[in-house]
């Protein structure tokens, strides 16, 4: 069958098939947040009762917005700027806003993977000793003592942080230069199974430690009263939303590398449930380990501090490892898992930026990756391998995630569903290529539930930051680095919209035609 096409866009790369796409999408979704964010959030928001809002959030927000991303990328075939421009010309800026978010996140996310690599090596000798907090912020990061007059920004590089960070960037660039099939997909095919095996070994070992059941009791004993607390529901929606890597371009970009005649919804369900399944595994592993630590220290699990975020991973976990039988082995498994989970997410984040520049400025893949990767690596090293890296990371992370990504999601839903009324076309696209059909409920989720919950989260977070600041940091610092991040995202998005496209993305015909042509459908065999 011959077809004519008016598509003059450059040829597009592809994943080799469904398995490659699913593994890459899971690799992107499963990141640091699954390991260090979910267990603490679940524990603090009702324990076992958190399951109820969590599953409801997964079904009414996580999966619907994942489908929205898939439909956009797959139908309009490009990175976020191309996709949103093809939806409506002026929406290109939203695409660049998502690209800017990815760029900013990539530069600090790499630093955390660098830390994990350092701690992977330190595991073999338990180098952190007894004072793990002092080791992390003092000996390792050599953190500037800002509380006692230390500088808020320095260029004092810390070699132990700098060297692994450079390694992370070299590895990232090498993978991305390899392309979608031979780089990204291959990295995920290797690292994702390795991550699951390594982490499973760790979890199984953890649940047989003394005191592990105390930890699991703490995590799973339900506090049903929490279900009446709106903040618990917001926390559940927030966890699902951040954990799935949706609404900032990654899943748009990845799904654009699927062939046109490709199933979207069933693989999407596998990705979403795998992400939650891994989180559940992490919850059990982390709390079993925390139960053991509490047991060794003779305290209750509730009295432990540092049960989420970088402090869980780089202060609390080293303390667990030091006291475990065969500690060095399990330390290596933990930090190796952390590095692998982070790395497969980092490559997906940077691919969004590379794809955006490649398409708009007519660059080859190699040019885009080397330029973007090079600039990102330099900024990453200057910002995060110094004695003030942790403070910058903490601040930029808070603004780019809690404000940047959430705003991106709200804008995306409001523009697409309410203003441009694109949702029937996108639902038609999903159903035309997929085996599992999406019902009208999807409109309610992406048009009402997601934007309402996320807009509430966004507004309350902004009010809180304006009124109370963040982590007690200096106000001027937060103004420049925190709110400044937001300014960079917006200004960057506007500036990148302005230049002319090297190849116009506009002479593009979306397939399948919408409104649908009612005539005949072709079978797969006849089309080939």
């Amino acid at each position, binding site marked *: 069958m011959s*077809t004519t096409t008016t*598509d003059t*866009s*450059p*040829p*597009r*790369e*592809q994943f*080799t*098939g*469904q*398995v490659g796409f699913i593994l890459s999408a899971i690799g992107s979704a499963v990141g640091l947040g699954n390991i260090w964010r979910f267990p603490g959030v679940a524990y603090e928001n009702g*324990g*076992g*009762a958190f*399951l109820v809002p969590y*599953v409801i959030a997964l079904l009414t927000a996580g999966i619907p917005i994942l489908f929205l991303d898939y439909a956009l990328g797959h139908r309009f*075939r490009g990175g976020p700027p191309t996709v949103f421009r093809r939806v409506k010309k002026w929406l290109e800026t939203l695409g660049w806003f998502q690209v800017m978010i990815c760029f900013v996140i990539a530069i600090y996310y790499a630093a955390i993977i660098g830390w994990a690599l350092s701690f992977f090596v330190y595991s073999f000798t338990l180098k952190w000793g007894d004072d793990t907090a002092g080791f992390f912020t003092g000996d390792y990061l050599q953190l500037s003592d800002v509380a006692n007059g230390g500088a808020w920004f320095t260029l004092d590089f810390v070699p132990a942080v700098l060297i692994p960070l450079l390694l992370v960037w070299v590895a990232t660039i090498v993978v991305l230069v390899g*392309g*979608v*099939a*031979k780089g990204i997909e291959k990295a995920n095919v290797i690292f994702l199974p390795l991550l699951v095996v390594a982490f499973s070994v760790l979890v199984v070992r953890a649940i047989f430690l003394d005191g592990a*059941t105390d930890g*699991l*009791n703490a*995590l*799973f*004993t*339900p506090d049903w009263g929490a279900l009446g607390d709106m903040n618990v529901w917001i926390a559940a929606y927030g966890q699902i939303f951040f954990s799935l890597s949706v609404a900032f371009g990654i899943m748009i970009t990845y799904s654009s590398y699927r062939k*046109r*005649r*490709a*199933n979207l919804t*069933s*693989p999407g*369900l*596998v990705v979403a*449930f*795998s992400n*939650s*399944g891994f*989180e*559940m595994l992490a919850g*059990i592993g982390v709390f079993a380990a925390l139960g053991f630590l509490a047991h060794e220290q003779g305290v209750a699990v509730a009295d432990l501090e540092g049960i989420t975020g970088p402090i869980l991973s780089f202060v609390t976990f080293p303390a667990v490892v030091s006291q475990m039988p065969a500690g060095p082995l399990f330390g290596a498994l933990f930090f190796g898992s952390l590095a692998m989970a982070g790395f497969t997410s980092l490559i997906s984040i940077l691919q969004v930026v590379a794809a955006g520049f490649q398409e708009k400025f007519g660059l080859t*893949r190699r040019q885009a990756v080397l330029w973007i990767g090079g600039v990102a690596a330099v900024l990453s090293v200057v910002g995060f391998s110094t004695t003030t890296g942790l403070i910058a990371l903490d601040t930029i992370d808070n603004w780019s995630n809690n404000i940047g990504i959430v705003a991106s999601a709200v804008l995306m839903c409001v523009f697409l569903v309410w203003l441009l009324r694109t949702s029937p076309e996108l639902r038609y696209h999903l159903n*035309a*290529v*997929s*085996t*599992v059909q999406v019902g009208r409920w999807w409109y309610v989720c992406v048009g009402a539930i997601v934007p309402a919950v996320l807009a509430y989260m966004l507004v309350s977070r902004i009010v809180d930051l304006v009124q109370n600041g963040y982590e007690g940091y200096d106000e001027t610092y937060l103004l420049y680095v925190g709110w400044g991040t937001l300014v960079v995202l917006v200004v960057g998005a506007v500036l990148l919209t302005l230049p002319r496209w090297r190849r116009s993305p506009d002479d593009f015909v979306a*397939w*399948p*035609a919408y409104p649908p*042509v009612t005539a*005949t*459908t*072709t*079978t*797969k065999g006849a*089309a080939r």
Partner: protein
Amino acid sequence: MNADAILLMVLSLAVVWGGLLVSILVLRARPERADFPPGGDDDRREDDAITERDT
């Protein structure tokens, strides 16, 4: 572990891992559609085509 915690742990795993199992089975039963709207030939490939290994 107390009974409530065990119940909730089992329930959580059943819902989430059960959901994963069901979605994998659904995908395996029907990996791709047999019928598509007309058209939809793939874009030209930039990379060297690799053998497709679809499920």
